């Protein structure tokens, strides 16, 4: 055991419980008297709760749901810890408890040092205010003092590359500029402990690299960072250790490589069922405000299909539901093969500068030609709006068949011959 004075965050049996109300179905024949009595009783209970300042739960049946249960860990000074897990595993809840946004229902956390949390970029940005004004506003919201912001002002502006537009209201900014400015403020926070939720993956690729670089810098300065992400690459790059949460509990904690490998392995088991149209599991949607609700997979002729030939195109029709708080969103897809390798990524915002307004709730994603080898592939979908607001892992799967680009009589399979087919030729030289 090391020196305990080095421990900056200590969580003991941490738990967070939500009470959810259900409306049980009523019988078909009920006397009017019963209904009136029931309503009167409900009204009485509600009024009582209101006066006693207790939260009121709708419905007549209540269920307790633990978003986090028995979570214990210790984090030492200067450690960079990654938190991984599916949607709804409790990652964000954990960060919210650590940053004091919400109160735990059980357990206890002891934190030494100044904490800053970054649950999304651009929190509190006001569209009517100028870039300059928003830097001060956002800085204050994230916990910087006025003098601190003044001191770093030029650095922030240079990092965001928005010098020319400092006195323009941010509502006139392009979404790229907006995100850059927002991240620049956050990147110049200097707390002893930094909590980051899935915010690195905003902006274009060049800017993302810059952000990752900045994060590495933060870690090298000996500050403690807790970092939530779906991006295993970033986690492996930045973090020495990782915590894997699933179903509100810690499944495994330890060295990053080990934990991420095991996590990824567990992700492949949902591979066997192919389906043309998939409705999102309601458990998965829990707590999400704007999310993917269903996905269909089709060929270019518009027929439902999960089997594609080599070099064909596939089309995803994606439905979104819920309400986006504001602004615009960008959609992304990730394709993994059955060896769990990331095959390809597409992202509307960073790649194409395409951001959708919140009224757009149906998207068509065309992927291909699929120059990939025969095998099984799965597609994950993800939504970004300031921060990553939804990731639907393994949303749908497809197979590639007849990968015979060279008129061979056999197919080229992934497991033996790699993922993609590169055009090539062999010639004799004299």
């Amino acid at each position: 055991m090391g020196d305990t004075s080095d421990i900056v965050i200590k969580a003991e049996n941490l738990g967070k419980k939500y009470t959810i109300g259900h409306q049980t179905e009523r019988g078909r024949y009920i006397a009017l008297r019963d209904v009136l009595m029931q309503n009167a009783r409900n009204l009485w209970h509600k009024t009582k709760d209101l006066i006693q300042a207790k939260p009121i739960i709708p419905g007549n049946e209540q269920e307790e749901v633990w978003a986090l249960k028995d979570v214990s860990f210790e984090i030492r000074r200067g450690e960079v810890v990654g938190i991984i897990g599916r949607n709804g595993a409790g990652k964000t809840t954990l960060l919210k408890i650590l940053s004091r946004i919400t109160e735990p229902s059980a357990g206890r956390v002891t934190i030494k040092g100044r904490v800053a949390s970054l649950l999304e970029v651009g929190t509190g940005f006001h569209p009517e205010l100028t870039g300059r004004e928003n830097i001060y506003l956002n800085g204050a919201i994230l916990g910087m003092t006025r003098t601190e912001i003044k001191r770093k002002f030029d650095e922030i502006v240079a990092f965001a590359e928005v010098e020319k537009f400092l006195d323009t209201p941010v509502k006139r900014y392009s979404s790229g500029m907006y995100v850059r400015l927002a991240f620049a403020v956050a990147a110049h926070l200097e707390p002893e402990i930094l909590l980051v939720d899935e915010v690195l993956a905003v902006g274009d690729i060049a800017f993302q690299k810059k952000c990752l670089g900045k994060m590495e810098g933060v870690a090298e300065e000996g500050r403690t960072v807790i970092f939530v992400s779906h991006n295993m690459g970033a986690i492996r790059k930045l973090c020495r250790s990782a915590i894997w949460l699933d179903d509100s509990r810690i499944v495994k904690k330890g060295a990053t490589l080990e934990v991420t490998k095991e996590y990824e392995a567990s992700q492949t088991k949902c591979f066997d069922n192919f389906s043309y149209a998939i409705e999102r599991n309601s458990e998965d949607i829990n707590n999400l405000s704007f999310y993917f609700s269903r996905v269909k997979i089709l060929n270019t002729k518009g027929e439902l299909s999960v089997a594609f030939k080599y070099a064909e195109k596939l089309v995803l029709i994606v439905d979104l539901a819920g309400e986006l708080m504001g602004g615009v969103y960008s959609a992304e897809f990730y394709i993994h093969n059955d060896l769990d390798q990331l095959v390809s990524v597409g992202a509307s915002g960073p790649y194409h500068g395409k951001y959708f307004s919140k009224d757009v709730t149906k998207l068509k994603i065309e992927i291909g030609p699929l120059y990939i080898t025969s095998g099984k592939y799965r597609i994950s979908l993800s939504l970004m709006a300031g921060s990553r607001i939804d990731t639907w892992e393994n949303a749908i799967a497809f197979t590639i068949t007849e990968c015979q680009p060279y008129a061979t009589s056999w197919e080229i399979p992934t497991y033996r011959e790699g993922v993609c087919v590169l055009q090539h030729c062999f010639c004799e030289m004299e």
Partner: protein
Amino acid sequence: MQEQVLIIEPGRTEKNYWADLWRYRELFLILAWRDISVRYKQTIIGVAWAILRPFLTMVVFTIIFGRVAKLPSDGDAPYALMVFAAMLPWSLFSLALSEASNSLITNVNLVSKVYFPRMIVPIATIVTAFVDFLVSFVILLGLMTYYQFAPGWNMLLLPLFILMALLASLGPGLWITALNVKYRDFRYVIPFVVQFGLYISPVGFSSNVIPEKWRLLYSLNPMVGVIDGFRWCILGSESPIYWPGFTLTLAIVAFFLWLGITRFRKMEKTFADLI
């Protein structure tokens, strides 16, 4: 090295809540500044709204209550001046109350994404109402010059009554904004209360027209005391204060303030879960 140690536990109320509120004063100032600078953006006449609204209401009230209904003014004071002396605290109160009541739900993204003592948000909006008040104060000075009405020493006590108007709106404002987080019903209640209150408070008429035996009951409305106080400061001896009623008003303001603060603090921790 001295380091702050923070313990997070269920039901743990921070001992230094008020100190924390002070520590976040910069955020408070910047939120108030944001609300003020955003308030009249994208309007044509901008800040003139703060003058126009109370002024027009005053004109209408002077005509209806003063000319048509022929209600008496306080002593020799011009009717328009008497109405405006009440219009000022009333618009301060109603604006502060409605802004504070909606403050948490208009700042959803802040509440669900960062920590700070939540009370900052409703209090910061009250600053906006105060700035509007200062602007419309100019009309009062204009009216006094027009009627050549010189204020007495009572005027020096006006800040006390301004504070009272602010506290009167803060108490219910805190309670309602906390309830608003879960029940958006209260969003509809406030415009109604404000509209209704304008007529049951002595804005368009002097509270001296209320029969003596009903005056104590009438003072249950906390704005009665505040408005009487304002008139006393501005119109001087023309408008004497009814002391039993005024004491009752003070007690009611204090009660609502206590209620608002305790309810707010009790519900504060669950805001992020509910909003």
